[in-house]
């Protein structure tokens, strides 16, 4: 290397900014266009659901004089047969459904991932105990558990989320355990041990980040599943109760009115689809952002 070339290389050394792991991940996520667009749409939906009710002239529990009118300027989403404004209902329903779905996905994923990682990492007796308990949870029927707890829930959204998460985490733990069982034999885990890393560090710094792909995919599925389960619970009277509402409840109530008052069915249905779809795309983007080997993000 000539002198000038060496000097140029030395100068270049200082022009590259060092970035933290988080910055690098965020940069990769931002390159994923569909995921960024989905995130934007989801934020709009969330703002619509949480800020909208403060601005809109009708309350979701309020009866207006207009019964069963089609969408118009006064009622953009139309009204129900008892005169409630459908836009106000959809805003409230989205709010409740998003809260239930997100809490379910986060809680089930967090518990399941740590549970499965510990089982897979320690193997042996710990594994056997943890996984048999997870198997036991998998056998519990959602509706029976919900029915038992229904007496006390009084339709509060977070209890519904906890009940659903309390049954779904076992699936997450099975997935994570499988991934961790193969990861723990990799040489970089042994390398971490040779450096003196603690078990906690190995699990949270090396095993779980490498298992994030399947975990995130499953979390996005969980969001959709939670919305549907909440609907099923509401239908049976264990979920969110009238006059409060959720997207699942709205769709369910409008089942018989698809032909006569389609707006009651399609507007909440559209929101369920939009939420599930955007979360799926965001999950895709996150998975790619966490995996530096993915080249697709460069598109």
């Amino acid at each position, binding site marked *: 290397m000539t002198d000038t070339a060496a000097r140029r*290389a030395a100068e*270049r*050394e200082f022009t*590259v900014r*060092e*970035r933290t*792991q988080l910055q*690098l991940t965020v940069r990769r996520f931002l390159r994923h266009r569909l995921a960024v667009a989905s995130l934007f749409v989801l934020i709009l939906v969330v703002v619509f659901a949480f800020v909208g009710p403060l601005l809109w002239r009708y309350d979701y529990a309020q009866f207006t004089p207009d019964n069963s009118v089609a969408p118009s300027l006064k009622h953009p989403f139309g009204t129900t047969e008892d005169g409630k404004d459908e836009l106000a209902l959809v805003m409230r329903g989205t709010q409740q459904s998003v809260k239930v779905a997100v809490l379910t996905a986060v809680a089930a994923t967090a518990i399941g991932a740590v549970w499965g990682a510990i089982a897979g990492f320690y193997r042996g007796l710990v594994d056997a105990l943890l996984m048999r308990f997870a198997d036991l949870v998998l056998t519990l029927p959602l509706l029976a558990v919900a029915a038992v707890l229904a007496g006390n829930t009084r339709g509060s959204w977070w209890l519904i989320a906890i009940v659903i998460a309390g049954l779904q985490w076992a699936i997450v733990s099975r997935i994570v355990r499988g991934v961790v069982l193969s990861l723990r034999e*990799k*040489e*970089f885990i*042994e*390398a*971490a*041990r*040779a*450096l*003196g*890393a*603690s078990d906690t*560090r190995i699990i949270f*710094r*090396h095993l779980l*980040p*490498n298992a*994030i792909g399947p975990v995130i995919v499953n979390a996005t599925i969980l969001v959709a599943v939670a919305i549907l389960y909440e609907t099923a619970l509401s239908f049976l009277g264990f979920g969110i109760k009238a006059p409060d509402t959720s997207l699942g409840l709205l769709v369910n109530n409008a089942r018989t009115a698809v032909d006569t008052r389609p707006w009651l069915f399609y507007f909440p249905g559209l929101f369920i689809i939009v939420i599930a779809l955007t979360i799926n795309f965001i999950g895709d983007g996150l998975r790619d952002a*966490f*995996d*530096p*080997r993915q080249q697709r993000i460069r598109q």
Partner: protein
Amino acid sequence: MTAPSAAAAPPSDPAGGAADRPVLEVRDLVKHFPVRSKSVIRRQIGEVHAVCGVSFDIRANETLGLVGESGSGKSTTARTLLNLQPATSGAVMFAGRDLTKLSRADMRPLRRELQIVFQDPYAALDPRISVNEIVAEPLRIHRSFGADGRGQVRELLRLVGLNPEHGNRYPHEFSGGQRQRIGIARALALRPKVLVLDEPVSALDVSIQAGILNLLRDLQEELGLSYLFVAHDLSVVRHIAHRVAVMYLGRIVEVAPAARLFGSPAHPYTQALISAIPLPDPRRERARRRILLTGDVPNPISPPSGCRFRTRCPKFAGQLTEPERNKCVDEVPELVDRGTGAPVACHYAEPLHLLDSPA
């Protein structure tokens, strides 16, 4: 390299006399792995005798080469002495303490002093973590990632010949040789005294191997490191090691300074290995004496009695009389000096001149 007249040099003193006190002493290290039945109740039905009573010293600023074929227990020895897997018995003395008796928590501060570089540079680096973080990890674990942590990482990358500018990149963006350099930088981060190199170049292209070997040699000089260099490639070991220990089926069969071992090996197994090193000159290659071994390495679950090498030993098969053979079958040959100038584990060891002066 070394002078051709190896016999002229005093055999007990390879590295120039200054560094005679061992940094690390391994005594009668044994590692057996249980073999379990395939049925529901996983009964233990046997043991793989991976390492059987291995003893050696590593002196300050010295490279000890550990060679042997696949399955001879080289890597197991390396991992067991670092306490990455519990030893069945034996002792590893470092800084006045027996590593095999230490718990994981007690072992942690000593990990600063003893580090390892792995064979497969593709598997030994976490694919999800940027190179900066990989090299910083040992500093973080031992809470020495201070205000100048980033500077330290840059310095380490420069030390192993990488551009610190590339620190934001991920392992998959590097070639095998570069990854091995990252692994070395990580191992050096805590300024260890002893570095275990578990076949550090066998996964690399030949043209890259030389670069890594020279780097290791420079680092040894610069930082005063002691190496345990595990390898199966004799020419690599000849290039870098001061002393060489040869393993066969879990036992060390011969230890000698590199020049002596390659110049006049005394154990029949060592002789066979050395006669298999290809010579760069075709005329000499054709004319040389070859010692060919027959058969495979015996099953380590039930190793042969007495001398473990006897089932394949050309001397046992061709030159020994019946009573002499009985000794091989009945008596385990100890690793002691048998008048050949270096310890050798063969009842009938005699040095054999196989290679001309090192090229």
